């Protein structure tokens, strides 16, 4: 198994990081988060259509760059660092992964190229975003693929051309393709804590769908793992951004005639935070390498998701606290990352759920 990034992977990171710094500055984040749509189609075209960022993990035969979880993680990390606003996570990570893991070959051939080049915006609709064991509890499909039920939250469904829906039917769970404008589909945007990631309630009332693959328990867990690994990367990007900006703030702000960064209480909090971030980042990068090589701990993705979420929240809390009053204002950017951190902490399973999932994988259920 790989233990360090390759030259090509470092190069990918440089390119993505430069593009996002340019296309997703905090001013753009603030503008987009205030809109209903939540993204800028011109930037989407540049990053996904031209630069191929939605297809880094898609095989070349399906129009992607042929990378894996490591490459996907690199892009996710840089997206999280800049708090990129747009359906990349929903489309590339969630829907892309579902297609790669669960769709029949012919459906992959048909649907993946559009996701990979950004011309299709897709999302994955699950009726449980806490635990894979709960998926399929609400949405059901008839034998001819007609869908009924509710997903109380779906990421970026409001802009999706293609909804991939996991539903229960007669046998194992199935993956179903639904068009964005299908009849009987009601997509209702929700008020959210983190406005940089849009959520909607999706209700299906006899919606025509197409069964495109089976989703066994194993398949669902593989999808969950890949999404969680990518999400952990996204979180680590945000955590590192917060950590770096917070440490530099402590060097600039003066109180009692000296920089606040010279106070030991703050220094020690930052040192502990560095350790927490280093550990979480190592687990996160490791989770992608495990997924790509098929080696390593089966619970690697859950370890990464739990550790990254805790580290991001620690960085977010310190980011506000070490700035004092200014940190609690709307005007200061820190809260944008704080809210992303809170949202990501609970999306696809809280740290506690992932720790229990880890233990079940290691030792069996309690």
């Amino acid at each position, binding site marked *: 198994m790989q*233990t*360090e990034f390759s030259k090509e992977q470092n190069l990918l990171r440089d390119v993505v990081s430069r593009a996002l710094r340019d296309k997703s500055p905090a001013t753009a984040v603030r503008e987009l988060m205030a809109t209903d749509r939540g993204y800028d189609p011109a930037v989407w075209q540049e990053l996904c259509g031209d630069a191929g960022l939605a297809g880094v993990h898609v095989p070349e035969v399906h129009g992607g760059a042929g990378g894996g979880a490591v490459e996907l993680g690199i892009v996710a990390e840089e997206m999280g660092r800049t708090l990129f606003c747009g359906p990349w996570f929903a489309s590339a990570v969630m829907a892309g992964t579902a297609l790669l893991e669960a769709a029949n070959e012919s459906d992959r051939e048909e649907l993946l190229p559009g996701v990979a080049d950004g011309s299709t915006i897709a999302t994955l609709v699950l009726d449980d975003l806490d635990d894979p064991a709960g998926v399929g509890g609400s949405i059901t499909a008839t034998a001819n693929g007609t869908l009924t039920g509710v997903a109380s939250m779906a990421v970026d469904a409001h802009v999706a051309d293609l909804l991939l829906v996991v539903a229960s039917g007669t046998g194992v769970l199935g993956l179903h393709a639904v068009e964005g404008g299908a009849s009987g589909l009601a997509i209702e945007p929700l008020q959210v804590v983190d406005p940089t990631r849009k959520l909607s309630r999706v209700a299906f009332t006899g919606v025509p769908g197409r069964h495109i693959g089976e989703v066994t328990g194993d398949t669902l867990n593989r999808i969950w793992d890949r999404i969680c690994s990518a999400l952990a990367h996204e979180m680590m990007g945000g955590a590192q951004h917060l950590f770096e900006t917070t*440490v530099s703030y*402590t*060097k600039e702000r003066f109180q009692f005639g*000296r*920089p606040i*960064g*010279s*106070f*030991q209480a*703050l*220094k*020690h909090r*930052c*040192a*502990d935070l*560095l*350790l927490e971030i*280093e*550990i*979480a*980042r*190592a*687990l996160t*990068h*490791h989770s992608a390498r495990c997924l790509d090589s098929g080696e390593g*701990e089966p619970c690697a993705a859950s*370890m990464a998701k*739990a*550790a990254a979420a805790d580290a991001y929240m620690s960085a977010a809390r310190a980011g506000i606290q070490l700035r004092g009053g200014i940190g609690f204002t709307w005007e200061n950017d820190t809260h944008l990352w704080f809210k992303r951190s809170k949202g990501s902490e609970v999306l696809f399973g809280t740290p*506690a759920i992932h*720790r*229990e999932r*880890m*233990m079940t994988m*290691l*030792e069996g259920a*309690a």
Partner: protein
Amino acid sequence: MTPDRIRQEVSAWLDANWRIDRPLIEWREILLEGGWAAPHWPEEWYGRGFTLDQTAVVAEVFRERDAVPAAQVGPRGLASETILACGSDDQKRRFLRPILTGEHTWCQLFSEPGSGSDLAGLSTRAEMKNGKWIVNGQKVWNTSAHHADFGLLVARTDWDVPKHQGISYFLLDMRQAGVEARPLRQMNGHQSFNEVFMTNAVVPPEDLIGGEGNGWHVAKTTLSFERRGFSRRVRGSSIDGPKQGPIYEEYEEELRIAAEPYTWYPQREGRVDLVLPRARETGAINDPATRQEIAKLICLYTGARLASDGAEARRKAGTTEIIPAGSIGKLAASVIARQASVVHTMISGADAMLSGPDSAADGIIAEVLVSVPAISIAGGTDEIQRNIISERVLGMPKGFRADQGPFRDIKRNA
């Protein structure tokens, strides 16, 4: 060299040389000449310039063959690394060989009653008289000093310059009238560390290392090696169970004495390895709250190992400074040990009140609970590691200092 090649070479060499009827020291000399005593050392000094991973392969083959390795227990590694990095060729010639053969054991004479974290505030005095260094003062918490042949000693040779500049580093012969080591009892009942009194102890001029007034620099080399050791050590090859043959008797006697102060060291690291077996044995593995804490421990432990492997690789590539990497690893080891101690307590429940052979895991768990506090003190406290990390890695500004100017004017403990 690939692991397979190393295996082949070591095996072939052992076929030709390993015999259980040789005296221990004679065997170690053959080992040294063969270049297998310390493969991670440089080629010109008994080694092969191997990485730690390559060295681990060698140790593994020795273990499989029950072959006795070079002497490795105790602070001899601190001595050899310091001498390799800062010593003269003459010092390397005189000191390295007996470290490997096991003829000399070492101890670290750094801390004093008046200065521990503030190591550079030390006040043991060394003066040049009639061509020799004469040492007076007291050291404390010195592990295995009671049976050491030599000590790594830092002492003040100039009182009129700022504190870091007036320190020199000596290789002190412990077997002399002016040196007395008295064992101290620790909170876990063991007697590993000592107080050491030096009264007109003598050091010949050729045993000053790194030059007069340069002792702080040399001490930092020792400390960086020590801290890295907390997160990753060159794993020694121990031989399981009693083996028949004359060399094993000598080897076991050596281990019995040299390893005695360290029997509790695995316990101070928290015995993460015992967590899952104990949780299964007691049924605590089914308790949701305990499962959460075990999972946190596994994340910490696995993540810290991965991070330290990464840091090691970057260190080799020359991109990370050594001391901060060691400090992060040492702080991680403390955090892991504390979490392990929390978990062991949850697993044992009321049984955690018991110690001794009747208690959990033959008393090992009780020893964990009363030994873990040492890991965040020995080798530089957690607070000192956080100072180093925040200042050296994160570049945060130093706080107010009350210890500038000539050492003799600085306020210190009576």
